[in-house]
């Protein structure tokens, strides 16, 4: 519960002087994401930089230091019947706010309630020059200057160290209920998309093992009437189901650690490719998890990318597989150059998380 930003800044300035690369660690729960860290990097730990800086329930705004554990945020919000609407996966008790934004990880409600990137209002960060900078703010709307805050989403800390994050938070829905339907993957996709086009309080749509799960959240009367109209079987312990989906604790995710887990982010209506492994569909079709076979190599990655592109999106090797090779969707050359230059604009000496996102960054 303290502010160690000046220590962090000092460590970065020293590292810059010595050209010592740094590995940014939040809670360390998402070490499996991104590429294997290249050797010789010194740890820059955010764990000590934690605590809620301000929380105004009536303003729907919360500001916390980047090392604050998500569970601490959730507890504070809970007292006011509010929530992090992007439902961040809590991979373990130490997962932090900074790591969540850096990884741009959002849960099942993402298509309806927005992603962590959507809810970010402002940040403080330390760039590779050791400068502590503030972008955005603590208000809902702010278009002064470039949106450096949201730019950080997905950068995996390659542009700098987040020290503080301001978020828009939302009231918890007063009621929620989950309906289950028997359906094959193709049929489920079609239903999910049709239901999402209706003005009903849909807040989750997932398919797994021949079952389609639709979550409704909102005013009690709206949830009840929609449930009556859509049919399906009510799911008991629904909250546990969505939480396990969010935290990747469903048996689907408990595969052998060598088994590669691919994450497809695609057009929600795209057909499911016929492959040997297993699929889990989330985000109303827009996010799909594919559990591949042990020993998949670069040729398989190229094939996955081809499938993702055909589905209008991208794929990344979320976990397992060969993590010394590229794990994110490859970028055309012009985009590579742009991203390298952007990295340089923030971190000219390449101090932060070298090679974590792409080998060329």
């Amino acid at each position, binding site marked *: 519960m303290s502010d160690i930003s000046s220590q962090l800044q000092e460590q970065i300035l020293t590292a810059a002087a010595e050209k010592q690369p740094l590995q940014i660690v939040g809670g360390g729960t998402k070490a499996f994401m991104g590429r294997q860290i290249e050797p010789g990097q010194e740890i820059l730990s955010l764990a000590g930089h934690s605590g809620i800086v301000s929380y105004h329930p009536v303003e729907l705004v919360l500001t916390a230091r980047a090392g604050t554990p998500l569970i601490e945020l959730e507890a504070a919000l809970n007292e006011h019947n509010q929530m992090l609407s992007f439902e961040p996966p809590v991979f373990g008790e130490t997962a932090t706010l900074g790591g969540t934004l850096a990884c741009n990880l959002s849960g099942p409600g993402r298509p309806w309630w927005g992603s962590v990137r959507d809810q970010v209002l402002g940040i403080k960060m330390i760039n590779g020059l050791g400068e502590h900078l503030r972008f955005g703010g603590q*208000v809902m709307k702010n278009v002064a200057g470039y949106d450096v805050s949201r730019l950080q989403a997905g950068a995996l800390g390659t542009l700098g160290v987040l020290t503080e994050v301001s978020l828009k938070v939302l009231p918890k829905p007063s009621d929620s209920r989950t309906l289950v339907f028997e359906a094959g993957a193709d049929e489920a996709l079609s239903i999910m998309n049709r239901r999402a086009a209706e003005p009903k309080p849909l807040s989750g749509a997932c398919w797994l093992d021949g079952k389609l799960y639709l979550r409704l959240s909102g005013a009690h009367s709206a949830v009840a009437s929609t449930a009556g109209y859509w049919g399906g079987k009510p799911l008991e312990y629904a909250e546990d189901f969505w939480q396990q989906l969010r935290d990747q604790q469903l048996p689907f995710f408990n595969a052998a650690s060598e088994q590669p887990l691919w994450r497809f982010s695609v057009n929600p209506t795209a057909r499911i490719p016929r492959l040997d492994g297993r699929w889990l569909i989330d985000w109303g079709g827009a996010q799909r998890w594919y559990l591949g076979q042990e020993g998949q190599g670069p040729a398989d990655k190229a094939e996955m990318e081809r499938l993702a592109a055909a589905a209008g999106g991208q794929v990344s090797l979320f976990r397992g597989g060969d993590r010394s090779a590229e794990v*994110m969707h490859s970028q055309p050359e012009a985009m590579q150059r742009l991203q390298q230059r952007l990295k340089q604009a923030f971190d000219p000496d390449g101090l932060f998380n070298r090679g974590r996102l792409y080998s060329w960054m």
Partner: protein
Amino acid sequence: MSQAETTGIKRNRQALAERFRAFIDPEYVISDDETLKPYECDGLSVYCEMPMLVVLPETVEQVQKVLQICHAEGVPVVARGAGTGLCAGAMPHPEGVVLSLAKFNRILEIDPLARAARVQPGVRNLAISEAANAHGLYYGPDPSSQIACTIGGNVAENSGGVHCLKYGLTVHNLLGVELLTVEGERLSIGSEGLDNCGADLLALLTGSEGLLGIVTEIRVKLLPTPEVAQVVMAGFDSVQTAGDAVGSIIAEGIIPGGLEMMDSHAIVAAEAYAKAGYPVDAQALLLCEVDGTEEEVHEHIDAVEALFRRLGATSVRTSHSEEERARLWKGRKSAFPAVGRISPDYYCMDGTIPRSQLAHVLTEMDRMSQAYGLRVANVFHAGDGNLHPLILFDANRPGELERTEEFGAKILELCVEVGGCITGEHGVGVEKIRQMPKQFNEQELAQFHRIKAVFDPDATLNPGKGVPTLRQCQEYRSLDMNIEPNAGAAAQHNGRCSHE
């Protein structure tokens, strides 16, 4: 500008125009002063500048060639949508080319099942919702200028509207864009999926005011049209109470589709103009729109009405038909022209504040209003803290525009002081560049310049907008130190029009 310079530009103008006419319909390469004139400003007409040339290409290849030529010649390029911007963002550069995207007005695809549309940048905001309507869908962000403004301009400004609190800004409603860099290189940013690998470049480009690249195609999300929307109007005898009521609605767990506030000046002006039935004796008026399923709307409307009454609203009225709803909104939506009728000119500001600071900010503004001898009417996107003070003035009175600008600048500084920002949705452009150093320090501004250099190292895309150079900042500081309060000594900006 000196005679010699002007002659130089005119010579370049003809030579460049000829090169463009080789691949663009000659009619769409404008080089005569009379036809150039309408392009001299955007919606903020106190800033204007005649461009060297205006081009209206019709294909991406043509835009690409224009950019390649301008890049090779070091000629500034200013993108332009409908020119409704309110920060002089599309104001031309005297030695530059205005690149109008007006011919890119086609909706390329509507995918009702995926709830997305692929559109060209010159498509009008409202046209997207009109086209999607047949599928029970619409495009979320609805700036008051939506009949005229383009989606390309919306992307460049990250525009908002009265429904932002619930449905987000432009940045929340985009999936991807096709971009041309200053060199004319094509980039695809985003995808048909919701998230993409790596740093979020789509967010960086949204709101970048035409400084980083030219948007040539946009993929937007579409939302299902709510079954029902109803609006509750309530009058209050103090701004503080109305502000508290806004907080109480949120505390109740209700996120209204729209939540707008007007002060007494704005109420009176709007009522005179729109005859919406507003309580003209109220000090503040709230419009709270609830949308969703029929059941949900009933539940929430009851709660909102009860809450307003409990908090001492002096009048409460709820719309019971679409017609009535439209009438209640009409006053708010025509607030700008309504204010235009009670004053020869008005100047619209765009600060954002934490809602809890509303009463304090309005009191301070009242004080300044008296000190400057200028009236202010306030309309407020109360849900998300975005304040639009409209300063009433008469440009024909010597010095009054300068006093207005100084007053406006003070309002923005006040917004920053209370934890807000200088612009919520209209952008910085030329207009607020002077206030950027109030919100950002030199290191932050330098970081912005390094970002700009990644995309546009020679700074030929929309030069002089958005981010002040460090030299400008030093000039502002020395001006600030010499400035006498209320003396009407506002610094002269580049491009300020003379009003003879």
